[in-house]
């Protein structure tokens, strides 16, 4: 079966190597186009002025922080249930990337909050649950680093990741469930005339940047996954063959 073929770390190592340049090129093109749209084409917001441009970084980073966590948790679950090594490695590879984008979402949120709300930080539901997500990533990495046996390390990490999944809907719905400084959803919210509650001039750069960030995530995930494969398969013949001087 094709799926099983690509699930073999050896085959996937080569396959990922072929994919990386294409994802890297696609990322660069979309990132360039998104930055041009976001910084030069999109108009200033009628209330927020030029500060609205922070949205083109902040919102894609926040979306990616949750998407990467779902990739991590799903990979962990697959590794846990079907004992698939490649999935375990994918979970490990996703963690530092997800953590970095969570931090980016928090910092840009702070930089946007200061001029718009008058404060860098507030202990409200959206901000606190996103901070918790950051700690979940750090906890996952620390836990895996503390356990030497790779299979036990993968199992423990996956269990922690699965428990932490409960935080994802909390982040998403926090702006509806609780009173918060954070503005509610605009992209998924449909207004009275049946269109998203955000103007296309702001929505288009936002979506381009979101796709660019996601492609970037896939690129770096594949890079990290390749290193992880080499590390965990270091006792196998094919790796020895590969690094032979």
């Amino acid at each position: 079966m094709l799926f099983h073929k690509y699930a073999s770390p050896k085959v996937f190592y080569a396959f990922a190597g072929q994919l990386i340049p294409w994802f890297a090129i696609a990322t660069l093109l979309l990132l360039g186009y998104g930055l041009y749209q976001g910084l030069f084409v999109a108009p200033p917001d009628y209330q927020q002025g030029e500060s609205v441009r922070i949205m083109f970084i902040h919102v894609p980073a926040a979306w990616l922080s949750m998407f990467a966590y779902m990739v991590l948790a799903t990979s962990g679950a697959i590794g846990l249930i079907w004992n698939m090594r490649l999935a375990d490695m994918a979970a490990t590879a996703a963690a530092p990337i997800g953590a970095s984008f969570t931090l980016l979402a928090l910092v840009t949120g702070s930089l946007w909050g200061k001029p718009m709300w008058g404060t860098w930080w507030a202990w409200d539901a959206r901000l606190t649950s996103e901070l918790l997500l950051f700690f979940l990533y750090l906890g996952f990495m620390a836990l895996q680093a503390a356990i030497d046996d790779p299979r036990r390390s993968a199992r423990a990490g996956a269990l922690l990741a699965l428990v932490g999944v409960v935080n994802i809907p909390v982040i998403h719905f926090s702006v509806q469930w609780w009173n918060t400084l954070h503005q509610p959803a605009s992209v998924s919210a449909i207004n009275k005339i049946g269109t998203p509650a955000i103007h296309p001039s702001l929505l288009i750069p936002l979506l381009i940047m979101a796709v660019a960030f996601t492609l970037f995530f896939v690129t770096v995930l594949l890079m990290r996954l390749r290193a992880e494969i080499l590390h965990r398969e270091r006792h196998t013949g094919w790796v020895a063959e590969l690094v032979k001087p």
Partner: protein
Amino acid sequence: MNWSEFFAMGGYSLYVWGSYGMAALVLVLNVLAARQREKSVRRELEETTRLNQVEAE
């Protein structure tokens, strides 16, 4: 629009450029860290291969 106006960002330059700068940093560091990880794994592998060879001899 002139460039100084563009960089001023309507008075929000610190916040806007701070955000874009932070994003650039996160993107660059992610790529560098992934490369670094690959390098250190390979170095470790070469080291063990070399030690095994020495042992075999």
